[in-house]
């Protein structure tokens, strides 16, 4: 859309949401009346393909009231929306002990390319063709390689930029390899960065979970109980609800991409399994074996209604990168 059209649309959206049950949402988003509880903001965002603009919806909460508002806005904008979960997550990240500086590096801490907000350090790996060589840290392409928009050696920061990481102070690794995100169906969203010589790391201890076995779970089935430690939500437990999920449509800043063979997980204990900033989290089974690499989440679904988390099968991740877990 032309920017003037989006500006007009934004005003219509505010007016629409100002009616009836959506009043509190609008109060939050545009400071209209009452006591603002910020959980939705409206704005204008450039489209990922640089062909005009779309209505930007920034969410800080994910309950039924917010979802109802999103549906209204989607209809109003005829789908030309750019939805992101922000702010509340960022606040959680800043206050989270998982987002502070960790030396030695740990599984589950905040990490990110210097131009990316932040994600989670998944695990430590070595190249199969150099098993005694350098160590690498593992996370997503969209966390370490900025969705294909990076170059080898780029600064990887711990904590990630959204958690206060700075290139001149918090560099821990240089981007080494990423599996390109492509328009045909993907299976993995992953990358590795070579850890700087002066930076120590602990490849096995996961705070609040225990010792990672270093092994890979061979069978991933429905109802498998899993756990992860993410930089934002910390330790959460979940249950596999589906596997071999194909034709999964995932929104990225570079556009919608398809994924095949994915693992679907719901949170238990009235919690979502993951939140924005948990991408890269290593999913483990109850034997502390690696199951998957968190990379995406749905806005709805799951028996608690808090959304579903999607993870790449870890075997496919390490095979694609030709590395082994340490």
């Amino acid at each position, binding site marked *: 859309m032309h920017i003037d059209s989006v500006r007009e649309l934004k005003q219509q959206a505010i007016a629409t949401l100002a009616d009836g049950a959506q009043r509190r949402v609008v109060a939050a988003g545009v400071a209209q009346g009452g006591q603002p509880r910020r959980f939705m903001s409206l704005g204008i965002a450039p489209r990922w393909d640089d062909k005009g603009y779309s209505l930007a919806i920034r969410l800080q909460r994910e309950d039924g009231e917010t*979802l109802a508002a*999103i*549906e209204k806005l989607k209809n109003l904008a005829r789908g030309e929306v750019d*939805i*992101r*979960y922000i702010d509340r997550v960022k606040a959680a990240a800043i206050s989270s002990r998982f987002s502070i500086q960790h030396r030695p590096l740990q599984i589950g801490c905040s990490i990110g390319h210097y131009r990316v907000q932040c*994600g989670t350090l998944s695990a430590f790996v070595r190249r199969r063709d150099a098993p005694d060589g350098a160590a690498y840290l593992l996370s*997503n392409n*969209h966390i370490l390689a900025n969705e294909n928009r990076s170059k080898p050696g780029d600064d990887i920061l711990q904590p990630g930029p959204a958690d206060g990481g700075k290139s001149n102070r918090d560099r821990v690794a240089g981007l080494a390899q990423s599996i390109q995100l492509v328009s045909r169906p993907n299976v993995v*969203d992953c990358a590795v960065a070579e850890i700087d010589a002066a930076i120590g790391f602990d490849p096995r201890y996961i705070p609040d979970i225990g010792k990672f076995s270093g092994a890979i779970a061979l069978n991933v*089935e*429905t*109802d498998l109980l899993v756990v992860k430690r993410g930089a934002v939500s910390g330790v959460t437990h979940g249950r596999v*609800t*589906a*596997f*071999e*999920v*194909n*034709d*999964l*449509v*995932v*929104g*990225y800043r570079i556009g919608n991409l398809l994924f095949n063979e*994915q693992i*679907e997980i719901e949170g238990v204990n009235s919690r979502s399994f*993951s*939140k*924005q*900033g*948990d*991408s890269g989290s290593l999913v483990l089974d109850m034997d502390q074996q690696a199951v998957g690499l*968190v*990379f*995406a*989440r*749905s*806005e*709805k*679904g799951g028996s608690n209604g808090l*959304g*579903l988390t*999607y993870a790449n099968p870890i075997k496919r991740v390490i095979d694609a990168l030709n590395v082994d877990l340490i």
Partner: protein
Amino acid sequence: MNTATIEEAREVRELAKSAFAAIPGVHVMGVGLTRRDGGYAVKVNLDHAVPPGTIRPDMTVRGVPVVVEVVGAVFSE
């Protein structure tokens, strides 16, 4: 009792997807495998609910149960 095997569920996955993709205005957000009543099933994720009466709640494809869930949009985290 559901006796569908994982191979049977894999075989009908595309058929299940096509059935939902043919419904006007409905977008399939992913199709996976899951378990129901002791056997395997196909799970179809949608961006929003289908109109009432469009599908049977006990829908099967060649004897394999089809589980439908509205998940909305999916985003990288």
